């Protein structure tokens, strides 16, 4: 179905005052160029001024067969004939031809030494571009100003060169010096120089850069844009991309392809050409071969060629047109810059290719995947079509009509790959195109477009008036086209006319579409048409927004004129306000699309969310827009509920007023009670009335049954009502473990923000605060469970405890509990370190007796977990080594830091704590006390420095040495018994005399050594001055044991 909307795309029309019957015309740079039939004169009219006054008129060198204007460089290019030869010429500086009698400079391509440049560029110049073949078609690149010429079998690319005036001037000056025949002229020299230096124009020239040979296709039209070349023959279109490459194309490769072609050639002789559409690389398989000829400019680099698109039609495919009529026309490559691009430097982000048959037009998108964007089915034979910034304009014999285009949708997606998300939306690229109201004319011949100006040529001499009228009636009956007004504009008097029809601004057209959409909205808000129309309006605004200020300035090629600079400031603010208007309109449109999708079907209703979001409406506003009329049977739309749910889930900072929050509760209790719980838990709902909500939740429980999260939600409400007894009663309804599961199910009962995402701010809920006071164990268990279920990050949990003011108490409990639960190595290491530091902090704090380093300490409650709990349930806490008990028995340390000491010792005895990381922290603890010493000794031991440990221990607490040695000097460290401990003890007993502790230790050691060594070894170990009788029994045991073995 083709939508036809009764919108008025055309605003006004003027008739250009041309004196002779126009033959050809083209637009560009704010001007309309008209060549009289068969004439050798070009009239340039100002399209941007009321009445289109004549700017200038200039003669051409031959009969113009084709004329084009290039935006870049502001030049005209013509194909001309004179004395049956065909020429290609570029007319530059045409704006200086204000006076028809001024001389025109002529030069050959590449011959830049010109009089005109001496005269400061203030002279029109014609560049003759010699070609070995007859040119058939020509096109200018709107991005670079390059020129593509299509001949019978070749395509030739000319690059535009701009030579700075200043640099040329010196050159010419020198040259002139010799050419003055008499001294009189030196006076005029200085004059001339002065006048020329006031201008700073660049002089244009072209350079032949690439020649492409093309077989089996005769170009009728060509197009060029940013490295893309399009060629159109009678029924074929081929699009190629030319890339400058540093690597030279290998000869082998090219000869290979030609071989392939040769094979295909033979195959094709047997086949009748068939319909073909080959996209992207596939186009390579078309039977048209293209080869690059070397231009001899080797240092200029090489080019590589890739196929982009091939389309072939067969004439019999199209009904309603005779075979002769069925020919392609209106080839166009259309670039689109996205708003984050700077037009001058970059290649366009989007590129489109349009071409047309008499009964259908085709618009392809060429970048980021080649695809057919839209196919336009014309109800009547179309003679010419032009793609403009917002619309596709087509002319039939008797009407101008426009269709909507999808380029802006493609651009939006290119610009923002996240456009189709819950954040943003844009109507699909495939949205059905539609036709707008048409405007009748008689005998239309051709059309061209400049910005919002559509220029039309009509001539009636071939068609009698009655026939025109008959055809009009026929159309009206058909009702396939919406016709603008019965009053036709007919060419009066001359039999021909040149019209300039202005299209309305996109904003105006948008407004009309919105107006039009009201009818739909009232009669049938669910209708697809409303959605479609609003989507059309949306794309119209997007297209308008894409015409960024930068681009608009670039649009007029006259920017080289100095006065432009003065106008710019004024223009800038106008552009700014225009942009604001468009943005405001886009927001409104998004709001309407949001309304539309909020009532839409299951399949598309989710679009309400991104559109409402883009509209900038507050939730409250959206709620108001979606309130069902009291009389209406409609309840809330699916899309609206989807929006609301997402909004409430998404943890925005925006808090609803109590009124709105209560309304939200009502909406969900009516439409989707199962969502009520998660709605209540949303931070946006913080202001909801607790008593009212409690009643509703109570009712929900009555109908849907008891659930843990629901109970917690109710408890939250009760708590807000300060009814502590009822709160306690509710919380006691379920076991702690079940409550923890309840938190996993709905984490927002405990914390707001986050949602599992890292680095977002989280806050404790009122319930969390209550739990910290009344059930800290539950809070910690809940947080651990949330962490382990990836609902909260460690840093976020820390933040929660910080906000709760439990940094040094509950938070430490949390870490300890985390250590018990977590299995992630990085988290474990982090926690071990944190806990070790906390313990050390506390020990240092009490040690220095300041106590101020943690304010919690004085009134600190006991930790949730004792050392024993931890040792028993957490593998990272090790059982205390026996020698620690000997070294510092329980009563020797103050009970204030006993727990921390044990925990730290336990960590040091455990397998996981990395000693290297805590060592620096331990430096803060003095070795003065035994317990301090014990920690340092643990460290030394853990690092395997048993020698030092043995010495230190013997120094400080020899009674612990055997317990230590028994525990640590085993297996590979066994040797230390006799290598280190035995000699140490011998030395020390000798020095200390009768020290019973040392002697006992020595005795124990000798027992061990005697069991572990051979008699010979043992003999070696006995000190020279030792009493034989003392060592003898041990030697005996040793020998006996050996004999037994």
């Amino acid at each position: 179905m083709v939508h036809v909307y009764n919108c008025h795309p055309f605003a006004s029309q003027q008739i250009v005052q041309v004196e002779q019957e126009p033959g050809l015309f083209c637009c560009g740079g704010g001007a309309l160029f008209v060549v009289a039939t068969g004439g050798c004169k070009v009239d340039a009219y100002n399209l941007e001024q009321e009445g289109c006054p004549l700017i200038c008129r200039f003669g051409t060198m031959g009969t113009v067969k084709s004329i084009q204007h290039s935006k870049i460089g502001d030049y005209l290019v013509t194909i001309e004939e004179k004395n049956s030869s065909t020429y290609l010429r570029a007319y530059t500086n045409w704006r200086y031809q204000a006076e028809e009698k001024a001389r025109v400079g002529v030069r050959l391509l590449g011959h830049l030494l010109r009089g005109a440049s001496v005269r400061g560029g203030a002279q029109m110049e014609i560049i003759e571009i010699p070609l070995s073949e007859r040119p058939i078609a020509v096109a200018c690149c709107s991005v670079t100003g390059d020129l593509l010429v299509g001949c019978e079998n070749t395509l030739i690319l000319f690059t535009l060169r701009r030579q700075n005036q200043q640099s040329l001037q010196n050159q010419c000056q020198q040259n002139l010096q010799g050419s003055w025949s008499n001294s009189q002229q030196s006076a005029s020299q200085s004059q001339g120089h002065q006048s020329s230096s006031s201008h700073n124009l660049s002089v244009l020239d072209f350079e032949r850069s690439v020649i492409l040979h093309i077989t089996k296709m005769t170009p009728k039209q060509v197009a060029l844009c940013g490295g893309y070349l399009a060629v159109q023959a009678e029924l074929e279109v081929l699009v190629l991309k030319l890339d400058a490459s540093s690597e030279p194309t290998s000869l082998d490769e090219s000869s290979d392809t030609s071989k392939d072609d040769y094979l295909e050639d033979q195959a094709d002789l047997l086949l009748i050409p068939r319909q073909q559409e080959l996209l992207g690389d596939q186009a390579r398989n078309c039977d048209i071969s293209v080869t690059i000829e070397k231009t001899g400019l080797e240092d200029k680099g090489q080019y590589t060629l890739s196929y982009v698109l091939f389309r072939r039609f067969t004439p019999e495919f199209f009904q309603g047109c005779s075979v002769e009529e069925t020919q392609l026309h209106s080839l166009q490559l259309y670039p689109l810059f996205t708003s984050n691009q700077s037009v001058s430097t970059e290649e366009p982000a989007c590129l489109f290719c349009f071409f047309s048959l008499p009964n259908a037009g085709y618009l392809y998108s060429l970048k980021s995947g080649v695809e057919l964007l839209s196919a336009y089915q014309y109800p009547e034979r179309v003679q010419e079509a032009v793609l403009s910034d917002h619309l596709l304009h087509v002319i039939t014999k008797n009407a101008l009509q426009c269709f909507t285009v999808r380029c802006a949708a493609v651009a939006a997606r290119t610009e923002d790959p996240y456009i189709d998300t819950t954040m943003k939306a844009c109507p699909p690229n495939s949205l059905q195109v539609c036709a707008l109201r048409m405007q009748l004319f008689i005998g239309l011949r051709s059309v061209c477009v400049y910005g919002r100006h559509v220029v039309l040529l009509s001539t009636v001499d071939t068609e009698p008036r009655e026939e025109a009228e008959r055809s009009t009636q026929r159309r009206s009956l058909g009702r396939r086209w919406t016709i603008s007004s019965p009053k036709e504009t007919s060419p009066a008097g001359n039999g021909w006319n040149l019209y300039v029809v202005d299209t309305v601004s996109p904003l105006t057209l948008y407004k009309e579409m919105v107006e039009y959409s009201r009818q739909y909205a009232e009669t049938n808000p669910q209708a697809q048409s409303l959605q479609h129309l609003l989507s059309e309006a949306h794309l119209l605004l997007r297209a308008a927004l894409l015409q960024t200020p930068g681009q608009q300035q670039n649009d007029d090629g006259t920017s080289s004129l100095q006065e432009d600079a003065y106008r710019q400031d004024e223009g800038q603010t106008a552009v700014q306000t225009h942009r604001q208007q468009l943005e405001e309109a886009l927001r409104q449109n998004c709001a309407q699309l949001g309304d539309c999708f909020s009532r839409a079907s299951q399949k598309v209703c989710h679009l309400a969310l991104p559109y409402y979001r883009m509209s900038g409406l507050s939730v409250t506003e959206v709620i108001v827009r979606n309130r069902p009329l009291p009389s209406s049977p409609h309840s809330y739309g699916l899309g609206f509920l989807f929006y609301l749910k997402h909004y409430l889930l998404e943890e925005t900072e925006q808090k609803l007023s109590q009124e709105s929050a209560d309304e939200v509760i009502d909406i969900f209790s009516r439409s989707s009670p199962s969502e009520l719980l998660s709605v209540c838990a949303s931070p946006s709902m913080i202001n909801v009335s607790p008593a009212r909500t409690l009643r509703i939740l109570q009712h929900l429980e009555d109908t849907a049954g008891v659930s843990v999260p629901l109970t917690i939600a109710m408890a939250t409400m009760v708590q807000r009502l300060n009814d502590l007894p009822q709160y306690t009663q509710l919380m006691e309804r379920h076991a702690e473990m079940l409550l923890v599961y309840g938190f996993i199910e709905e984490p927002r009962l405990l914390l707001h923000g986050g949602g599992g995402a890292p680095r977002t701010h989280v806050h404790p809920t009122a319930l969390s605060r209550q739990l910290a006071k009344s059930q800290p164990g539950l809070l910690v268990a809940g947080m651990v469970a949330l962490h382990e279920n990836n609902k909260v990050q460690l840093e976020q949990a820390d933040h929660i405890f910080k906000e709760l003011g439990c940094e040094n108490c509950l938070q430490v409990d949390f870490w300890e509990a985390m250590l018990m639960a977590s299995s992630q190595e990085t988290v474990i290491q982090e926690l071990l370190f944190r806990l070790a530091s906390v313990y050390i902090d506390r020990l240092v704090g009490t040690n220095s007796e300041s106590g101020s380093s943690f304010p919690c300490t004085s009134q600190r409650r006991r930790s949730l977990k004792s050392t024993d709990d931890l040792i028993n349930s957490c593998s990272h806490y090790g059982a205390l080594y026996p020698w620690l008990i000997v070294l510092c028995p329980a009563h020797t340390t103050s009970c204030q830091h006993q727990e921390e000491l044990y925990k730290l010792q336990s960590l040091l005895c455990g397998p996981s704590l990395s000693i290297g990381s805590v060592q620096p922290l331990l430096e803060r603890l003095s070795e003065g006390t035994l317990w301090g010493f014990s920690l340092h000794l643990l460290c030394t031991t853990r690092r395997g420095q048993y020698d030092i440990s043995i010495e230190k221990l013997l120094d400080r607490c020899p009674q612990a040495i055997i317990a230590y040695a028994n525990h640590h000097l085993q297996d590979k460290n066994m040797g230390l018994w006799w290598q280190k401990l035995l000699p140490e003890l011998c030395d020390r007993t000798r020095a200390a005399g009768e020290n019973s502790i040392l002697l006992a230790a020595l005795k124990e050691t000798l027992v061990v050594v005697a069991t572990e060594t051979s008699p010979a070894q043992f003999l070696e170990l006995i000190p020279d001055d030792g009493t034989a009788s003392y060592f003898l029994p041990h030697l005996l045991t040793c020998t006996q044991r050996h004999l037994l073995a």
Partner: protein
Amino acid sequence: MTTKTSLLKVILLGDGGVGKSSIMNRYVTNKFDAHLFHTIGVEFLNKDLEVDGHQVTLQIWDTAGQERFRSLRTPFYRGSDCCLLTFSVDDNQSFLNLGNWKKEFIYYADVKEPEKFPFVILGNKLDVTERQVSIEEVQQWCQENGNYPYYETSAKDATNVAVAFEEAVRRVLAMDERTDHLIPTDTVKLHRKPRSAGTCCS
């Protein structure tokens, strides 16, 4: 009422300084500049005129006479309908060079039948008192070369300038009844009142 208009390309050749640019200026703008730049390369302008009931657009091509600009001017000889070989009566060398100019023209213009091509000879600076070239010498040269018409002109005094161009047109029209360079242009001379812009959609 429509008449046929043709675009006639007329090219001025001759030594640097003989007054080609001055002649063209005199003819088209009716002005004379005693201190004129040497022409670099090629310039042209169009002038509409009626000769013997024929409406023609005369496209006058002015070229640089100095030898070193040869490569800039020769590519544009092609397609000329008439060539005005110019010398200055006070400069004998410029007269002696006429033959070379003719040769250069015929070579680069790729003229099919050189003996039939319409040349017109102009002896400029008639106002100067110290003549170096006599009328007889010139007439004899014209006789020997193809019976070319000869005009003595003065761009300064406007003597014979228009006459010479009209003669050139006549030569082209008379010599060449083939219409291949007559471009069928419908010239409509309607003095329409300017129509005001109206709006079409209500």
